[in-house]
């Protein structure tokens, strides 16, 4: 097991009290495999990934659970130990390639700096060679020339390639990609996903791929966790999830991509949107939007239940 989250909980202290944006999430990521995390905007995907990196800004705070990376609990590490791990064992790329790179430093500077953070002995020129090699690996044309370019001189797709080059420069075992293609147009999106897949085959890293787009999941993920309102509501292999979805929310999400072979009644789109943490109902958080809801759903949040080997859903009505 590469990464194992056990009951991870994260809250924000706000003026209206403490809110739990992530509320008891358990997940696993295997080396060389891709875990897709899918869910609508606002269901806690970014907060979850920043909690794993321990990069959550005030007033966010991890309040419970464990983040085990190869058997080590990251939540127990000192700041210094955690820094040594970031970029070397776990790396992260973000949604906005436009703002995620520093506009005042050259691409080369930013990659070299990432290398230098974990390597105090190599010479500057050897780090520069490594940085150019990293640019080459993400298939940036003319890498030694791009080394001196500034982010504003590159397109969105090229900037995201730079982000990937930077993240992978330290050869991490785990890459967390938080909506890496959402800000890009469709053809560029496909190129970036291809690139990630090839790099994974080359390096054997595990990937957590976060998206609100089931199309991306279908393309990339080996395993899937569906998140709703701070919790995982369904977990399965990607194949199983698409063939036999068990949570009404997953069904709803699938309803928004056209499927000819789906024999159930189609839910074209889910009415409403994810409630913010302070407005979560006491029972199943999806119940207010769920066509299958019954009185018992409002009592308590249903736990994840095994429905088939490797397939769990948090729904009283499952199997549907």
């Amino acid at each position, binding site marked *: 097991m590469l990464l194992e989250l056990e009951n991870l909980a994260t809250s924000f202290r706000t003026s209206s009290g403490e809110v739990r944006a992530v509320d008891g999430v358990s997940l696993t990521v295997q080396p060389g495999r891709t875990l897709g995390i899918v869910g609508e905007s606002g269901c806690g995907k970014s907060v979850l990934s920043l909690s794993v*990196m321990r*990069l959550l*800004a005030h007033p966010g705070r991890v309040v419970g659970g464990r983040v085990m990376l190869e058997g080590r609990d990251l939540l127990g590490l000192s700041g210094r130990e955690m*820094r*040594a*791990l*970031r*970029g*070397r064992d776990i*790396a*992260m790329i*973000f949604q*906005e390639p436009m*703002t*995620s*790179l*520093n*506009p*005042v*430093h*050259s691409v080369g500077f930013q990659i070299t*700096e*990432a290398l230098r*953070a*974990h390597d105090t002995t190599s010479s500057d020129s050897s780090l520069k060679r490594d940085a150019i090699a990293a640019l080459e690996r993400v298939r940036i044309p003319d890498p030694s020339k791009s080394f001196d370019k*500034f982010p*504003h*001189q590159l397109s969105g797709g090229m900037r995201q390639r730079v*982000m990937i080059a*930077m*993240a992978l420069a*330290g050869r991490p075992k785990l890459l967390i990609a938080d909506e890496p293609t959402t800000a890009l147009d469709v053809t560029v999106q496909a190129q970036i996903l291809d690139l990630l897949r090839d790099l994974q085959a080359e390096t054997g890293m595990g990937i957590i791929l976060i998206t609100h787009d089931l199309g991306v999941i279908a393309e990339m993920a080996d395993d899937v966790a569906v998140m709703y309102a701070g919790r995982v509501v369904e977990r399965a292999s990607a194949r199983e999830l698409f063939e036999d979805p068990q949570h009404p929310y997953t069904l709803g999400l699938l309803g928004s991509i056209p499927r000819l072979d789906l024999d159930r009644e189609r839910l074209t789109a889910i009415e409403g949107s994810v409630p913010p943490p302070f407005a979560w109902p006491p029972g199943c958080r999806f119940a207010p939007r769920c066509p299958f809801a019954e009185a018992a759903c409002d009592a308590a949040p249903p736990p994840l239940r095994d429905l088939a080997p490797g397939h769990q859903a948090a729904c009283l009505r499952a199997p549907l």
Partner: protein
Amino acid sequence: MRRYALQRLALAAPVLLGVLLIGFLLMQVVPTDPATVRAGPQATAEVVAAIRTELGLDEPIWTQFFLYLSRLAQGDLGVSIINSVPVTQELGATIGPTLELMFAALIWSIPLGILLGTLAAYWRGSWFDRITMAVSVAGVSLPVFFLGLVLIWIVGFQYQLLPFTGRGGPLWTMDGFLAVILPAVTLGGVFVGPVARMTRTAVVDSLTADHVRTARAKGLSEFRVVLRHALRNALIPVVTLIGLQIGFLLGGAVVTETIFSWPGVGRLAVGAILSADFPMAQGTIIVLSAGFIVINLTVDLLYAVLDPRVRLS
């Protein structure tokens, strides 16, 4: 970059021309006849008339303006009414000390303000932040002359630790260094607060930027994250904001020079105005305005150096 610099320079030229025009018009409205002044008190009417012709004072006003510009280009700004010394000679002797004072005031106050502002931003909400900002706000409302007089009274007069009148020589000599301390602390002192506050705002802003999160995700040390990313980017707005304080700096220099009898352009300007020495006053106003333009230009260029999006566009 070169195009940007030329553009800025081209924009500064009309402003400089405007300043010279105002200086010229100033001399048109004052009740002194430059020919009489040049001729001296004992001159006969014929001599004065000859000088009037030589200076072109009977020509139409636009011709006079161009004559004035060409004399200016040759370094001729007239002579002092008080002691008949050429204005440019006096200016030449006072510009050095003024630059020296500004240098000595800014070399410590801007770095200190930036340091305090950055730490306050990093530890926002802490006691350090609160005290620094409270003192900064108090400092903003502290007039230069008040700080100067307090320093003179306590450090110079009561304890006699440092000299407080005049310049002791070039900065690199012991006397010169000691003499500049109190004026530089006075003029710089009122700058620390505003620079600290502007820096704090800009750094707080950039600490929440996405690219700062990226820097942390790479595993950089906090020192590097704050210095090379948060502060480095915040310097762009900070330089602009410091640029907006130029008027404040020049005004402060005039006051500081006056109370410390510092032999600079500011003190010369005050003396010339108080004694109605119009040609001298005109000269000092031109120099101070030109200084304003030059500092503005420097800020614009610094801005481009700091921001590749400006530099490379």
